[in-house]
């Protein structure tokens, strides 16, 4: 494959697409190519994407009804094969992961997953990401081209919308997928609109909380602190006590509050990677050997069923 130096980006989420464009511009400032966005949707979206900073847009038109975003894989593969860009960055949503994986297989490369940072080692691109559930940082060097990578939300900062975009909009011929899934139903799930990443204070219960009804006690603590409720993954996924949007960690939300209080949280790397940038970390745990205790500023050794009520009283007394 003879390479050109462009970097393509694709995400079905416009906000993430804007961040990917910023990422592509960072990369092309080194490769010397253009940041090109692939758009599936109305023409207005393609124009909007130019304003987001794309130097060119590949517009695939609107998705036909009964079709899935994933159906663009053969078209994208054919386009990449024809135009041979340096790389393709895809938003790390569930659909984005599906697109990246399938595309990588078609093109005979391995997708770099959930990249946190790109670096250059001379002409060689390096990508940093977490492995072992946040227990280790790995730097990978792709050996095959094109480079395909997924990047999540909040890793790159979108630039301000441009008033006068001057990029072109081009198209690619649509390639029919070899198989098709019938869409039977789509139900939107009630998503509690919580923006944990923006919270100033976070109270995070873990498996140390024995019963779902005991969460009311933790909520009371959160209220006393004007904090957001978060949780560890098992409480959201598995137990289903709290919505999935509320769990912190490598596969959940990344938070940077001024205060994080882990209540009955052991502090496995998969979790702590999501809160390690908190300013003040407090652990309440009956086991002083729990990993979170040694990664906290203040740790209260004790039974949360005694410590939390005492803490609520102490906070209320202070306010009074």
């Amino acid at each position: 494959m003879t390479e050109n130096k462009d970097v393509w980006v694709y995400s079905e989420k416009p906000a993430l697409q804007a961040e990917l464009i910023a990422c592509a511009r960072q990369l092309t400032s080194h490769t010397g190519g253009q940041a090109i966005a692939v758009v599936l949707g109305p023409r207005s979206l393609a124009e909007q994407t130019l304003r987001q900073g794309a130097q060119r847009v590949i517009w695939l038109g609107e998705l036909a009804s009964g079709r899935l975003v994933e159906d663009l894989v053969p078209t994208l593969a054919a386009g990449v094969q024809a135009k041979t860009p340096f790389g393709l960055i895809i938003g790390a949503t569930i659909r984005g992961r599906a697109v990246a994986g399938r595309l990588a297989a078609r093109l005979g490369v391995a997708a770099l997953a959930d990249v946190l940072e790109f670096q250059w080692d001379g002409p060689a691109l390096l990508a940093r990401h977490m492995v072992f559930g946040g227990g280790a940082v790995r730097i990978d060097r792709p050996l095959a081209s094109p480079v395909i990578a997924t990047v999540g939300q909040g890793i790159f900062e979108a630039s301000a919308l441009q008033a006068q975009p001057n990029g072109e909009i081009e198209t690619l011929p649509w390639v029919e997928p070899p198989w098709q899934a019938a869409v039977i139903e789509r139900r939107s799930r009630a998503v509690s609109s919580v923006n944990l990443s923006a919270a100033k204070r976070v109270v995070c219960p873990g498996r140390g909380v024995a019963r779902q009804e005991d969460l009311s006690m933790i909520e009371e603590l959160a209220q006393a602190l004007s904090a957001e409720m978060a949780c560890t993954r098992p409480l959201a996924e598995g137990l289903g006590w709290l919505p999935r949007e509320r769990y912190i960690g490598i596969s959940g939300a990344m938070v940077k509050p001024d205060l994080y209080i882990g209540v009955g949280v052991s502090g496995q790397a998969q979790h702590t990677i999501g809160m390690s940038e908190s300013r003040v970390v407090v652990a309440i745990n009956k086991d002083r050997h729990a990993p979170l205790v040694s990664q906290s500023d203040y740790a209260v050794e004790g039974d949360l069923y005694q410590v939390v009520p005492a803490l609520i009283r102490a906070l209320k007394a202070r306010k009074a």
Partner: protein
Amino acid sequence: MKIVVCAKLAPDASDIEIRSDGSISLERAEWRIGSFDLPAIEAAMRLKDAHGGSVTALSVGPQRINNSKLRKDLLSRGPDDLVLVAEDALTGADTAVTARVLAAAVRKIGAVDLVLTGEGSADLYFQQVGLQLGELLEVPVFNAVSNIEAKGSQVRIERSLEEETEVLELPLPALLAVTTDIHTPRLPNMKEILLAGKKPVYEWRLADLEMERGLEPRVEAVSLRAPRPVERKRILIEGSPEDAAQTLVGYLAKEGVV
């Protein structure tokens, strides 16, 4: 229904040792079935229980995954047999190489109706191999599958996407990467563990899979290190709950966070 379920055997992340220079050692780590692959095995068993057929577990990796403990671990969770491609050439294989070897193995198993994978492997958690594998097999492939109902030569699946649940119908054969909460994995009992020792294990070599090409790495790991630790004050507060709470609130006030 003939089902193949792919499970990765990998070192346990909680056994990582951090050396004083920040490099990490996995020498002493215990190798286990990825905890996110157990729900896939359970999903395979539920389908077999409901519709009959067979379940083959499939794992590829370095030589050390071929040991009696891991074999028994996999088979005691229900699969009828196990296919292992265990060669040191596969140490640290990237997702593309792994998917290729898995694809060759699935083809060799033959006449497979459904391939299941976990959400992500325990060590890499790239959530990639299943999708790549499905594409290489040229069958319908979906991730985030949280429910599967088989209906003849079709399956109806539910996908848990970020903001919606999507219900799809697709023809078999297919590949589905399942979520962790599709089913709670069963704990093997005594009889199943004993039985596991007697189930067939097929040890295939890369040469058996006729994989002359496609094994060159697409990605090279340049470094693997512990994340930079954040310095914390590490003040341990003991004593009665009331005293401890008072002390903590005092500290938090000083930090200006209450």
